[in-house]
């Protein structure tokens, strides 16, 4: 990123268009700098093409075939029939719905808790390091490990949730959290929220520290209450940071896999889109169908990213401080 910006002159350009010096006015020096810039980014671009674009194109190609790893002779061209099979299959839509539910619920909860944590980390005066570290610990734990920890927590055989929360009317020593759809989804989401809220709060903390103290003081002098300061000053000024946090977490949450794999293996209808794709490609060796699914998953992720940037009306370049 810094290399790319260094190669562009600091002259203001029209928003929405890439900064590029006009051909007529480019000096020799600018041209040379541009060439150097291109050379400097070339290895990275080539590497990216090799490791990203090639597999993507390959997946697109494979998605047009009926192709199974263990019956290679069966391979036949199917056109878009893999896509029509997927898009008319109730399992695909159920899994997509599950994924959307997990994404919306976890990101919403994480946003609220994460913001509270960010405020604590921002405002705390004593034991600052210790508090910040302890808030961030869950994020340092590997997702698979956290998934196992939460699976044991909710386990009917050796978990503590059933005994600690027995006083709640719907929980007893025999409550099988992984025995039905909603309890299992709940357990999966708790694990996901616990693990990734610190990431959310870290991003929000960065946004919070960008809000100028002068503005807050001015609002206070003008007689704004705490809530007014929060909603009229702090949050609007954090919009870019919130967008980045929501975007990152939403895309992460949409690709949820580890927690489901460890906790239910997709049983009780808790499968996500990624898990469905994994099962087609890795477990069933259905390279064609699985590739079609992964293409659809990729398009969905693009769509979500587009919708979120539209919804927050924030220019990503601006959010990076390049505007």
């Amino acid at each position: 990123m810094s290399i790319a910006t260094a190669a562009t002159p600091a002259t203001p350009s029209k928003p929405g268009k890439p900064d590029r010096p006009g051909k007529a006015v480019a000096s020799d020096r600018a041209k040379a700098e541009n060439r150097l810039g291109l050379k400097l980014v070339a290895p990275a671009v080539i590497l990216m093409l090799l490791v990203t674009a090639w597999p993507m194109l390959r997946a697109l190609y494979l998605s047009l075939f009926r192709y199974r790893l263990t019956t290679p002779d069966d391979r036949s061209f199917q056109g878009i029939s893999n896509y029509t099979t997927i898009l008319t299959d109730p399992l695909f839509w159920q899994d997509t719905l599950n994924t959307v539910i997990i994404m919306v619920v976890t990101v919403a909860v994480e946003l609220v808790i994460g913001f509270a944590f960010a405020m604590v980390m921002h405002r705390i005066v004593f034991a600052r390091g210790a508090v910040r570290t302890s808030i961030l610990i869950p994020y340092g734990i590997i997702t698979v490990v956290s998934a196992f920890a939460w699976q044991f927590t909710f386990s009917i055989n050796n978990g503590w949730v059933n005994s600690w929360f027995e006083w709640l009317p719907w929980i007893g020593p025999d409550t099988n959290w992984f025995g039905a759809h909603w309890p299992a989804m709940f357990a999966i989401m708790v694990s996901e929220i616990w693990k990734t809220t610190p990431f959310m709060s870290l991003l929000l903390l960065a946004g919070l520290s960008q809000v100028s103290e002068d503005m807050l003081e001015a609002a206070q002098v003008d007689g704004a209450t705490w809530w007014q300061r929060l909603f009229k000053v702090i949050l609007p000024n954090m919009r870019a940071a919130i967008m980045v946090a929501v975007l990152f977490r939403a895309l992460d949450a949409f690709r949820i896999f580890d927690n489901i794999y460890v906790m239910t293996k997709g049983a009780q209808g808790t499968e996500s889109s990624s898990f469905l794709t994994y099962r087609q490609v890795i477990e069933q060796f259905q390279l064609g169908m699985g590739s079609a699914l992964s293409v659809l998953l990729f398009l969905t992720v693009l769509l979500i990213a587009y919708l979120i940037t539209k919804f927050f009306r924030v220019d990503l370049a601006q959010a990076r401080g390049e505007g």
Partner: protein
Amino acid sequence: MDRVRRGVAAAAALITASGLLAACAANADSGKAQLTWYINPDSGGQAAVAKSCSTDDYTITTQVLPQDASQQRIQLARRLAAEDPGIDIMSIDPPYTAEFANAGYLAPLPQELQDKLKDQSFKGATQAATWDGDLVVAPFWSNVQVLWYRKSFVKKAGIDMGRPVTWDQIIDAASKNGGKVAVQANKYEGYVVWINALIAGAGGAIVSDTEKGIDASIDIDSDAGDQAAAVIRKLARSKAAPSDLSVSNEGTAGATFGSPVGAFLTNWTYIWTNYDAAQPELKKDIGYARYPQTVEGKESRPPYGGIGVGVSKYSHHVDESLKAVECITNAKSQGLNAELTGNMPASAAGYEDPKLHKIYPDDLLKLFQDSLNAATPRSVTPYWSDISGSIQSTWHPPGSVGTSTPGDSASFIDDVLHGRRLL
């Protein structure tokens, strides 16, 4: 561009060099072939067999595969599809034998070895290891499920275990007397093992004509299928169902059986020694009988499990590996493995190992062998994983099994095999 080319050349040289270095390391003590045997995790039986079967010509070393049978299949198949020469010998779970053989991953066993193995092995073991008329893997150990019960509970409930019992009987007895019937009913292969045994016990099959590949005849929607569904539904809705029924596997079922509410358990042979370390007092209370009948009066068909040993077609040492397999699967090795792991031999000769008779009572060894001869392996088809997965999707959780389940699963299996539905 020169610089780019030089960079690429340097990178290529580095990659080649590291490959050569790795190859050198692998052949460090040249002359003697190194055979790598990919084994399913056990308590040291296969490693001991590998050691005893190593000769002056080759050394057999073991590499451990994942715990879960489906994960073992995934790892082996992915390596074999990539023609990985690093696998010489492998331990293969019966349901995936046909898939591997059909894909051409396995080196053919010499006719002589096939005849010898067919001679020595139990019927179920041979059946599970045969694809397209040939024995494609060598039966090594054979597992079978029997009905384990708590003597004290049976006494309280007043059932005569000397005669064959039915599922209905044990479910009723357990629910009336506050006991649990522990089975495997999580959404995994073990649940299909149970379903397959119930259907076979009623005289049916899940699929037949499997040599037709995806056009095999799907027979699960039958009287036998209905009877199997009825047993599962009855247990799932009775007081005899353990509270973790829908997530139970071999391990949790064993734990339920060992707990105060334990009454009946269908599980593999290793249960006899399962509690020796943690609950030694339990052994006096463990009884065993033939797998329960689905339909009264019709001989039960116990689930078959085990391991067949195959040789990779992509191995650089196929001949040595085939020799090694002959040694690995002889009666002596089978006995040694059984003694160390509780995984029972695939042949009657293997059962003659005197050490086995010290660990297991004679009537239990006889029960295992009788059960093995009556056992019905899961259908041998290259598409077993699709069929098994379809059944898991439609029959799980056990509480949802109803009269329409067999019919639903039949049409779902057909759709999945023909690529019309996602699994």
